């Protein structure tokens, strides 16, 4: 990880103690105990997340500025919107500095004590058991994956497309509830095609990240997804349309002639 980028972040966040917890592809994620505008009590254990999108030197400055600003604003806007949809868990928005690519939000998830204290992303949560088939396919995991699927279904019902559904972008909370994070590629859309592609991205992410149990995991996720649509007739028609598109996108993927 580049110290230069951390210094850059610090220059935008003067006097805020920062602790790096991850460097994703797009952003560096810090924790801090300092709230941006509320007074911090000395004995408070509450931590906040600061997500910083550093400039990417590899891309054209104009493109970089547009993307950073656009994605930061889009993510903040979506986080704000999601707080009004109680059935979708996501970190609450605290503050935004769009020009510098900075978002403050609530911290979700916990450290997995049986997995090197890594954050409880779905990826780490599942990988703990990768070498133990019995543990990898328990009822506990089934229930959690159904909850994850259900929440994605709820997001789609609300026309929220996550855009980057991987097991790293889903958090399992201490109460074993699902929580969605990382909305940098998210957008609003009612199109079944967009929802189908969203599901396809997830399907492939599970397949490549958890190949041993992918089939079962995807089945559980999809069972939950269908549940997320509820039972009323209108939703079921919408669900059917999305599943049809999803199947089409999958076929397109597998049958792509590779010749363009």
């Amino acid at each position: 990880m580049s110290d230069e980028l951390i210094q850059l972040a610090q220059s935008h966040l003067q006097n805020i103690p920062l602790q790096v917890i991850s460097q994703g592809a797009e952003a560096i994620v810090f924790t801090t105990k300092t709230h941006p505008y509320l007074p911090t009590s000395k004995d408070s254990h509450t931590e906040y997340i600061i997500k910083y999108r550093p400039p990417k030197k590899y891309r054209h400055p104009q493109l970089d500025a547009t993307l950073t600003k656009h994605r930061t604003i889009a993510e903040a806007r979506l986080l704000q919107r999601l707080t009004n949809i109680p059935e979708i868990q996501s970190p609450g928005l605290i503050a935004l500095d769009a020009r510098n690519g900075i978002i403050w939000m609530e911290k979700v998830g916990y450290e997995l004590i049986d997995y090197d204290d890594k954050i409880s992303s779905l990826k780490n949560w599942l990988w703990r058991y990768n070498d133990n088939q019995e543990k990898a396919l328990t009822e506990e995991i089934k229930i959690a994956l159904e909850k994850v699927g259900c929440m994605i279904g709820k997001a789609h019902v609300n026309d929220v497309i996550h855009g980057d559904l991987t097991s790293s972008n889903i958090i399992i909370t201490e109460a074993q509830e699902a929580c969605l994070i990382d909305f940098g590629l998210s957008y609003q859309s009612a199109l079944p095609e967009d929802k189908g592609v969203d599901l396809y991205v997830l399907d492939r992410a599970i397949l490549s990240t958890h190949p041993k149990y992918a089939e079962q995991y995807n089945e559980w996720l999809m069972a939950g997804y269908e549940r997320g649509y509820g039972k009323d007739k209108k939703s079921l028609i919408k669900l059917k349309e999305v599943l049809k598109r999803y199947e089409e996108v999958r076929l397109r993927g597998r049958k792509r002639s590779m010749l363009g």
Partner: protein
Amino acid sequence: MVHLDLHLKEGKTSYVAIGLEGSANKLGVGIIRHFPGPFSTTNRAEVLSNIRDTYITPPGEGFLPRDTARHHRNWVVRLIKQSIIESGLKISEIDCICFTKGPGMGAPLQSVVIAARTLAQLWDLPLIGVNHCIGHIEMGREITGADNPVVLYVSGGNTQIIAYSEQRYRIFGETLDIAIGNCLDRFARTLKIPNEPSPGYNIEQLAKKGSKYIELPYTVKGMDMSMSGILAHIDNLAYDLFNNKKHNKTIFNDDGTPKVTVEDLCFSLQETLFAMLVEITERAMAHVGTQQVLIVGGVGCNERLQRMMETMVLDRRGFIFATDERFCIDNGIMIAHAGLLEYRMSGKGFDYSDTVCTQKFRTDEVLIKWRD
């Protein structure tokens, strides 16, 4: 640790394979030698010959399968002869014949399979069918020494981001519509610039002279990307530019003079597409947790792409690996190399009924027996 030498023939001190590639417009023949034991800095595969002939189409045209297949049919014997001479080998020293099984264009693939089958009968040698993409990956790893990289495979027909796990090269991301090389080729056709030496190369040269960045759609979806919308968008800009559609304020000033040049369009197209490629590669690196990136495939020769990727990788304190046009562009040696790995694991060729080709053949379908 996988044992690569369970089938070494008595009295032999090395393995030799000839590889035939013709899945698109390039016909390649290569001969490779492996020595026993695992590969290392002191035990490298030896390239004995690696030659190629490209079917070139007139400007503004794509290559037709029929003419491409004809090119391959009528050159394959000459290329094989030249390759054998270059290698200095006797036919009796060759262990197996490897050919591209797919993916690719049907007719060109078929003409090369027939050549391989005929040779196998003439010389009485086993046949091995190779997945074209696996050929690129394995040759890239061998040439660069990258041991477990995220692989960006970018060519006329493919755009994939790949990483190894549990004996398969898994596809983490890919294009949801057209391939990057195809996108560049088609824009070259719109501009009616020559196809020689390759349309992508000519776009690259024009892009070097461009400087004004025009915003284009940017379509990354997770680790997947989409390019057909970008192509349609820039095709329209080029059309308006050529036809003096002065109402288009993106490319014309208020006084009617053009704001941008063809070079600027090429520059903007490359900047946008490559930024998307580098972004999904970085995502894959973060997701898989590796520090190595290997670029393979014809578009991998593009210097701008290599430089952008390098900038990203160095920021992550990682390592970038790329090959030059001898190995980047479709070639026979990579087919020989990957086929020989397969042969060393099984000690025999494919059943004759399996020595066919297929247009659709996904990278993750192949069981990688030669890696842990």
